[in-house]
C-alpha cells in the first residue's frame, strides 16, 4: 500500500514571526534577517519573535513546567494543529501519531556560572559539585531538559496521544523524524502524524558547542553562501517547525485541504572528507530525482553556512539545471533538529504560492522562476547527516 502523503497543517515560529502568512510576507519583504547582537555579544543570533504563549498553552502551570525551547515546540505544534483544523477533535488527536526531533534543553546558566566560580576556589571539587547541584537545581529543570518532554508536553497541552516518539542527533534527527513519519503514513502504518522540532538559540551552552569547532559565524554576511572567511559558520536561530502529515484519503474524508504533498524524504550519513557531502547529496538525489522536470523545480536549502560543506552543497545544487536556490538559514538562522522541518515548511509555502520568494544573495540566488511546482529541500548536518525532501503540488 502506498498512500499519497499530504501536508495538511504547518506551524512555524521564528525571528520572522509566527504562522504561514507572517513568514511568507517577511520572506517576500526582503528586509533582511532579524538579529540580536547585544544579548550574547559578540555572537549574533536570530531571536524568537514575541509570542503570546497563552494562545497555545493556556495554563500558566504548563508554561512554568517548560523552558523556552519546549514552549516554542508546544506553541508551534499548536499552530500546526490549528492549521490542519484538528485542534477541536479530541478523538482524532488521541489517534494522531507524533515524532519530535529534539536535542536537550537549556541549562540554568546562572547556576552553572555560580558553581564554576565556586569550583575554582574549592579543594574538594567533587563534593562541592554534588552539594551545589543538589541545592541549586530546580527539580522541574530536569523535565525541561529532557528531549522527550517536548513530545510529552504536546500530549499534555494539545492531547496528541496516538503515539509519541522523539528522535535525537542534531540535524539528522530532523531528517529521520520527517522521513519516518512520511514512510509510516505512505505505508498505512499511520493515518495522520505530527512531526517537527524546536530550538532556542539564546543559549550560551549551544554557542559553546559550536565554538569547540570554531563553528559560530562572527562575520557580517547574512547569506549562508557568502560566509567565506575562515570556516564560515552558523548563526543560531530560535525556531519551531511542525507539520501535520496525513494520508490523502484520510484528509479528503474529513474535508481537509492540503498545503502541499510530501513526495519523498531520503537521508544518509557517513564520515566527512573532502567531497563526501557533494557525493552524498548526489546519491540521495539519484534516488528521488528521476523524471523530475527541472524547469518547474525550486530549492529551499537548509545550509548551515559552515564553509566547506556549504560550498559542496552549492556545487551539487548547481547541477540542477538552473533551479532557483533559496537558503532558509539566511533568514531564520540555524536551528539544528528543527532546521529540516522549518526548511520543509518554507518549501511547502513556496509550493502553495507557486513560486519562490525573492533572492537574498544575488551571487547564488539568481533565478526568479515564477511557476514552481516542486521544491527540493536540502539539509547537511553541521557534523554528520545529509537529508533531502521533495515537496510538490497536491492533486486534490
Amino acid at each position, binding site marked *: 500500500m502506498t498512500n499519497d502523503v499530504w501536508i495538511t497543517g504547518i506551524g512555524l515560529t521564528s525571528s520572522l514571526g509566527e504562522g504561514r502568512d507572517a513568514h511568507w510576507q517577511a520572506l517576500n519583504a526582503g528586509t533582511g534577517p532579524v538579529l540580536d547582537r547585544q544579548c550574547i555579544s559578540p555572537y549574533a543570533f536570530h531571536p524568537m519573535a514575541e509570542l503570546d504563549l497563552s494562545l497555545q498553552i493556556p495554563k500558566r502551570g504548563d508554561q512554568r513546567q517548560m523552558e523556552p525551547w519546549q514552549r516554542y515546540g508546544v506553541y508551534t505544534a499548536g499552530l500546526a494543529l490549528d492549521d490542519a483544523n484538528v485542534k477541536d477533535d479530541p478523538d482524532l488527536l488521541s489517534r494522531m501519531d*507524533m515524532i519530535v526531533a529534539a*536535542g*536537550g534543553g537549556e541549562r540554568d*546558566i546562572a547556576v*552553572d*556560572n555560580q558553581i*564554576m*566560580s565556586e569550583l*575554582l*576556589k574549592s579543594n574538594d*571539587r*567533587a*563534593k562541592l559539585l*554534588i552539594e551545589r*547541584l*543538589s541545592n541549586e*537545581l530546580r*527539580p522541574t529543570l*530536569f*523535565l525541561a*531538559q*529532557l*528531549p*522527550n*518532554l517536548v*513530545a*510529552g*508536553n504536546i*500530549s*499534555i497541552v494539545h492531547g*496528541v*496521544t496516538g*503515539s*509519541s*516518539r*522523539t528522535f*535525537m*542527533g*542534531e540535524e*539528522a*534527527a530532523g531528517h529521520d523524524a520527517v*522521513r*519516518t513519519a512520511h*514512510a*509510516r503514513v505512505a*505505508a498505512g*502504518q499511520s493515518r495522520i502524524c505530527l512531526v517537527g522540532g524546536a530550538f532556542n538559540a539564546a543559549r550560551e*551552552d549551544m554557542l*559553546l*558547542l559550536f*565554538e*569547540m*569547532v570554531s563553528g559560530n559565524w562572527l562575520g557580517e554576511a547574512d547569506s549562508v553562501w557568502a560566509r567565506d572567511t575562515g570556516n564560515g559558520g552558523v548563526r543560531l536561530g530560535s525556531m519551531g517547525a511542525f507539520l501535520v502529515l496525513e494520508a490523502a484519503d484520510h484528509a479528503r474524508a474529513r474535508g481537509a485541504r492540503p498545503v502541499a504533498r510530501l513526495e519523498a524524504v531520503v*537521508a544518509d*550519513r557517513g*564520515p566527512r572528507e573532502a567531497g563526501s557531502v557533494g557525493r552524498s547529496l548526489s546519491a540521495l538525489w539519484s534516488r528521488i530525482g528521476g523524471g523530475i522536470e527541472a524547469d518547474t523545480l525550486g530549492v529551499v536549502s537548509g545550509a548551515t553556512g559552515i564553509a566547506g560543506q556549504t560550498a559542496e552543497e552549492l556545487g551539487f545544487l548547481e547541477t540542477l539545471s538552473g533551479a532557483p536556490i533559496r537558503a532558509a538559514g539566511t533568514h531564520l538562522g540555524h536551528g539544528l533538529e528543527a532546521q529540516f522541518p522549518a526548511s520543509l515548511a518554507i518549501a511547502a509555502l513556496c509550493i502553495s504560492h507557486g513560486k519562490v520568494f525573492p533572492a537574498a544573495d544575488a551571487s547564488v540566488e539568481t533565478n526568479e522562476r515564477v511557476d514552481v511546482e516542486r521544491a527540493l529541500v536540502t539539509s547537511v548536518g553541521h*557534523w*554528520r*547527516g545529509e*537529508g533531502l525532501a521533495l515537496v510538490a503540488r497536491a492533486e486534490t
Partner: protein
Amino acid sequence: MKDAAGRPVIAVTGAGIVTSLGEGKQDNWSGLTAGRSGIHAITRFPTEGLRTTIGGTIDFVDVEPFCCASFTTEIASRAATEAVGQSAIRPVGDFPGPLFVAMPPIEIEWPLRERLLAMAGKDDEADYSDLLEVASKAQSIDYENSLYGSVAERLASTFGTKGSPISLTTACASGATAIQLGVEAIRRGETDAALAVAADGSMYPETMIRFSLLSALSTQNDEPEKAARPFSKNRDGFVMAEGAAALVLESYEHAKARGADILGVIRGCGEKADSFHRTRSNPDGKAIIGALQAALDDAGCAPDEIDYINAHGTGTPENDKMENFALGEVLGERARTVPISSNKSMIGHTLTAAGAIEAVASLLTLEHQRIPPTINYDVPDPAIELDVVPFTARDAEVSTVLSNSFGFGGQNACLVFSGEPA
C-alpha cells in the same frame, strides 16, 4: 511467512546484553535466574552528599575520559557485537540494514566544563564567556562526545549499518521503541533486517541528583542489593543502572532462507501516550491500558495466550501500582494467575536500555522455559494481586511473553514475543 494481518513475520536472530551482572547472555541469564543482584555502592565517582549512593554501574567496562556518550557507545557496541555475531547475518562491519539506537540525553558534562575552565586559567571568578574564549582549543573528541548524534554515528561506522541511523528516546520505554521502529521498517518492506540497540551510560552525579530531586530513586544505601523492591509494600523508588542490549531483527523468510537460528518472533508492538502529567500516569490508567491493548491487537494475541509478563516493575510506588491496575483491566482474572517478574529487582533500572534488556531476557525465558524471579519480595504489597515469581526462578511452559515499558513523559510501549512458529 506472513502474520494474520498479512505482514512479514519478524524473527530475532541475534541478541546481546551487558548489565552490572556481566557481559553476554550467559552471565546475565545465570545471574537473573540465580536471583543475583548487580546493585552495589558506587565507586566510580565520589558520592559524598548524594541522597542515593548505590546503583547498577558496570564496573568491568571503563572508558577514558568517562562521559555519557563514550560509555554508552562502548556498552552498546559490546551488546551489538554479541547480537550480530550470534546472528551470523554478515561479518561484523557489514550489517545489511538500518540501525535504531535508544539512548540517553547527551550534554556537555562537568568534567569537560572543568577542563575548559582550567584552559581559561581563571582562579576566582568564571562564567560561560570564559569557556567560550578557550573552547576552540578543545579536542575534537570532546566536541563529538557532546553531540547526540555521536553514539549512533560511531555504531553505524563500527557495524556498517545502512542508511541514516536513528537515535531515539521515549524515556524509560526507549528500548522497546527501538525494537518497534525496526519491526515497522521490516514490515514496510524497506529492509530484510534491522539492528535495534539500546544503551544507557548516563550515571554521573548530576543525573543522579536530577532523579533524586524528583524523589524517584531508592535511598536504601545500606543494603544495596536489597534496594530494588518491585511490587513490595516497602518499595521506595528505582535504582539507577547502566546497561545495553541489542537485537538483530529479520524477516522470518530472510532468516529461514539463510538457515539462521531463530531465537523467537516479535508478534506485536503497541504504544500509547499519556496526556495527564509529566511524571505520573493518569489514575484512570488509560494510556498504559491502551499500550497493552495495542500490543495485543498488533500481535493478534488473546489475553489468555500470555504465559509470562516481563514487567516494567521499577519499584516506584506509582509505577507498580499502575502496572498492576492496567494488567487487571486488560487481562481480567488472568492477571492474577499469569506469572510476572521484574528484572529490575536484580539489575536496577537501566532507563533507556531497559526495554531492550528486558526483551533479551524475555527471549531467554522462551529459550530456557524458565522464568527469572523478582527478588527482594520480602514484604508483599497486599494491593498488588500478581504472581510475581518471588525469590527463585521457576520452570514453566512459556510460549508467549508480554514485555512492558512505561516512561516519564507519558510514553508507553509494550511488546509481545513468541517462540519460533511451528
